[in-house]
């Protein structure tokens, strides 16, 4: 058994090593970032756009349900250039840039709400877990079973002896494979994983209910209680509507039991999970063929560690501009408007995440004061896991040496340049994939937008080399090919 697990790992080290290098805090050595090896933070909900990446890599075009801006941001380390010293587990600061939005060609202000923590990576130790592992073994998971097993084996390898774990499987019905037990005998857990087989329908509701019931007795202060669901998210027995699962996880979160969905297979219903994963204590991750080690060796401790709840953001735009859009808020339509919105949960992360506000930049002159474009302010309020409330008010301010011309971009640091480039990548993907699936794609216009997005990513990568940006450029080029669009070299 061990030999087989090792053989799987041996197939992915080169990519894992590459990713590890890429994920090393790039902002820390560039002379701009304060904080060295301080950890970051990311909103809950989607933690990647892995499904869209897989669809594009296999020659397809993702739908708008297959990727989110918060997923894309969460894959990137987006530190601010000169953040104020951070003395709390979650600190939020702002940085502003001016650039054309490549979805509608309007030049707008982009304000990043950058998230970082005062927790040092080398000093961080997660709390012990009260973990319920819920595994979808229905027939639709047949092609994913070995991949799921690899993920589960790696997960078990990364549990500690002070953790508790229970294992539940569900197909047509749900069964407890392992009652909640201290992680003292990993071989028993590995053996149970090896014996998993697939077949039958998908009673995800029953599986999750059983999972909650099994770990409920062990919810206690000082222990992180969490249900992890390994699934393609296609329930067809019992409750099949997102609303039923929303109510269930909300009720469980009131008991301090969080949840993480791990999605498998190209049929993974990301849209369904996105409707659940934005709720308190929730997040989800698509597990691509080469992601197992990254997720379960390197990110596990952060995926289970919330550092803030009910983050509320209210914006006050200066006269002459308005907040027209917010990117990076899970299920933003259900969480307020551009002026006032909330994020149910913020998790600790190896990467410094962000939310991006977009403000109308059509008329900048009235906003100018003292060598800067003063676009207004944003007020932040959140609760710590211990129940304390933190508040702060931040300026949305873009300093300039020379007032930008009518079509100029103004990106004062490589950091905000990277954030705006990634935002524009999302906007172009959204526009082109939407047009493609609506049958309205203009290939000439699409080529122009793709080239502009690639040019921005290339420039950001030149300013601050980042393997993740190179990966985005490759993905956009492949998306162009899939759309039948000829994209020139940047």
């Amino acid at each position, binding site marked *: 058994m061990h030999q087989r697990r090792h053989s799987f790992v041996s197939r992915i080290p080169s990519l894992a090593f590459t990713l590890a290098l890429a994920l090393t805090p790039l902002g820390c050595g560039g002379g701009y970032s304060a904080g060295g090896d301080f950890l970051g933070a990311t909103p809950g909900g989607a933690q990647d756009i892995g499904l869209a990446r897989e669809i594009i890599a296999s020659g397809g075009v993702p739908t708008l349900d297959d990727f989110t801006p918060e997923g894309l941001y969460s894959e990137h380390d987006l530190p601010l250039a000169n953040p104020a010293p951070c003395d709390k587990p979650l600190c939020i600061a702002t940085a502003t840039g001016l650039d054309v939005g490549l979805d509608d060609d309007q030049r707008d202000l982009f304000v990043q709400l950058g998230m970082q923590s005062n927790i040092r990576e080398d000093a961080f130790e997660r709390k012990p877990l009260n973990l319920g592992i819920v595994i979808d073994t229905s027939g639709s998971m047949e092609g994913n079973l070995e991949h799921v097993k690899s993920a589960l084996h790696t997960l078990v390898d990364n549990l500690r002896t002070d953790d508790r774990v229970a294992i539940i499987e569900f197909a047509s*019905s749900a069964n407890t494979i392992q009652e909640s037990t201290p992680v003292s005998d990993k071989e028993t857990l590995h053996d149970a994983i090896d014996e998993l087989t697939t077949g039958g329908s998908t009673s995800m*509701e*029953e599986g999750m*209910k*059983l999972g*909650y*019931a099994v770990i*409920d007795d062990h*919810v206690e202060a000082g222990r992180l209680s969490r249900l992890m669901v390994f699934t393609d998210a296609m329930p067809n027995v*019992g*409750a099949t509507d997102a*609303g*039923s699962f*929303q*109510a*269930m996880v*909300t*009720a*469980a979160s*009131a*008991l*301090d*039991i969080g949840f993480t969905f791990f999605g498998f297979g190209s049929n993974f219903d990301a849209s369904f999970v996105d409707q659940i994963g934005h709720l308190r204590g929730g997040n989800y991750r698509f597990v691509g063929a080469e992601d197992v080690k990254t997720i379960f060796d390197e990110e596990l401790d952060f995926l289970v560690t919330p550092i803030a709840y009910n983050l509320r953001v209210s914006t006050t735009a200066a006269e002459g501009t308005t907040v027209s859009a917010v990117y990076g808020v899970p299920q933003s339509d259900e969480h307020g408007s551009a002026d006032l919105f909330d994020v149910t949960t913020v998790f600790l992360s190896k990467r410094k995440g962000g939310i991006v506000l977009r403000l109308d930049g059509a008329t900048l002159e009235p906003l100018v004061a003292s060598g800067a474009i003063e676009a207004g302010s944003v007020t932040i309020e959140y609760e710590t896991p211990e129940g304390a409330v933190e508040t702060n008010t931040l300026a949305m301010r873009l300093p300039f040496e020379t007032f930008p011309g009518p079509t100029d971009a103004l990106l004062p640091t490589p950091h905000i340049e990277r954030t705006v480039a990634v935002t524009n990548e999302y906007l172009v993907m959204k526009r082109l994939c939407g047009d493609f699936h609506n049958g309205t794609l203009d290939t000439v216009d699409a080529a122009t937008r793709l080239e502009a997005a690639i040019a921005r990513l290339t420039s950001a990568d030149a300013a601050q080399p980042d393997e993740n940006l190179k990966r985005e450029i490759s993905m956009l080029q492949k998306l162009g090919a899939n759309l039948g669009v000829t994209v020139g070299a940047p």
Partner: protein
Amino acid sequence: MNGRHFRALFGVLMFACLAAAGCSDESQRSCPSDFTCADLVTNTCGESGACASSQSCTAAKDLQQKGDQATCEAAWCSLGESYKECD
């Protein structure tokens, strides 16, 4: 009829009975149509507040305060075991 078939038939009959009572399976409680968050609080905290210090009671009161009827029903009818009844 051998033992395995008997157990299977028993399971089917049990499931049917529970379904008729409004439960989809053995672990699910039946919620009356007029179930409210106040019922959840009473069930978890106890008529006289005997279980007022339990986590389920605290969570139930939070849900009642929010007026989230769907979640109150889910707490009692779906999660069942996770929201302990006050004995």
